[in-house]
């Protein structure tokens, strides 16, 4: 049977409605009890409802910081803006890959930025791990999302409490100015509990994927 324009429109509308419901459910699930950060809420609205107003707010928050970050890595302003443009467009187009159960928007954007920068330098691009992805009807675990937010908050506090020279060292490491031989085992950042928390999110995901693969 051929699909008429009207039917296509209806299907599209139904899809949008379903997405909007999912966003509401995600937000409600997460906001029961405690608030998630604006950044996470905007990102979920972009991911699930393709919300351009939410994207504009993400842009206002991250684009100037991203430009500053890239310029501190030694890039001039014009090139930095090219990177900002590419990264923010990737955030829009690849929003489906964002998973608040094991990543924060800033970490996700950081990773996209590093990929983009390496792809410019190297012909072959960056070697990347296999992707793990939830099924589309996955119910988010609100407790896990909130715990990730809390860990991110603690991490930022820890960063702000470091001595200036220690903080400068960490900045250098994550800007890509240090080799692995130059990075010491102890960076001064408490990543242990964050790792355990992300691991919980991953185990849940792996369990889900295993069920999918082994019916």
């Amino acid at each position, binding site marked *: 049977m051929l699909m008429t324009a009207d039917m296509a429109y209806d299907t599209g509308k139904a899809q949008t409605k379903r997405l909007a419901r999912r966003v509401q459910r995600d937000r409600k699930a997460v906001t029961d009890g405690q608030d998630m950060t604006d950044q996470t809420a905007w990102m979920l609205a972009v991911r699930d409802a393709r919300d351009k107003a939410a994207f504009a707010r993400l842009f206002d928050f991250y684009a100037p910081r991203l430009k500053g970050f890239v310029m501190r890595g030694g890039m001039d302003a014009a090139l930095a803006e090219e990177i900002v443009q590419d990264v923010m*467009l990737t955030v829009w187009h690849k929003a489906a890959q964002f998973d608040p159960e094991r990543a924060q928007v800033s970490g996700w954007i950081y990773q996209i930025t590093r990929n983009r920068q390496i792809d410019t330098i190297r012909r072959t691009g960056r070697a990347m791990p296999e992707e793990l992805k939830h099924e589309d009807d996955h119910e988010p675990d609100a407790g896990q999302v909130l715990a990730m937010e809390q860990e991110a908050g603690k991490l930022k506090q820890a960063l702000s409490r470091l001595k200036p020279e220690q903080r400068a060292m960490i900045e250098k490491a994550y800007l890509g100015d240090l080799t692995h031989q130059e990075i010491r085992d102890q960076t001064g950042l408490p990543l242990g509990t964050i790792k355990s928390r992300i691991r919980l999110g991953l185990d849940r995901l792996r369990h889900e994927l295993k069920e999918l693969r082994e019916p």
Partner: protein
Amino acid sequence: MSEITHHIPEPMLAAYAAGTLPPVFETVVATHVSMCATCRAGMQAHEMAGGAVLEEGGAVDLSDALKADVLALLDGPAPEDRPAPKRKGIYPGPVMAALKNREPRWKSLGMGVRQSILMDGPDGSLRLLYIPPGRAVPDHGHNGIEMTLVLQGSFSDETGAFGVGDLEVADEELDHTPVAGEGLPCICLAATDAPLRFHSVLPRLLQPLFRI
């Protein structure tokens, strides 16, 4: 499958997240992370730390038109994407990417040992090694760092036993003689940032020939 017990050293995980590892090591790290939830969590923790640095650092004003330009592009086509390579048999996605999605091209090194070179250049080399059960890889030292990740079977040396997913990182200090375990042939992904040093004469003569 038994639990992975040999993981990526912390500085390498941080350097992977920051994108500063040479490509041959980067491929080994991406492959191990594809097999190991512990190190995937570690990698993502470092990405979170990178995100915190990005978020907490200073902002720089954008040129006036940038936001409008980006918003105008949202409805445009998504940029061309490099599809993430998929695992094939024992070879995880990053290995398949290095193999350009083809089968390994094995070359004999003698005594049943085979190799397939994936990358070779001034920044180091990356290869697959095939070692028959019970067979030893010639005693060797390193000028730089060697990373060896088991994809099938197992091996053991002076430092311990390594099964599927386990990663050995050896430096100049370590002279070792890895021996493949019984059972399946041992297939490893091995990266070095400098040529290996063999101690017996024959492999040393063969070294330039086989690009080890």
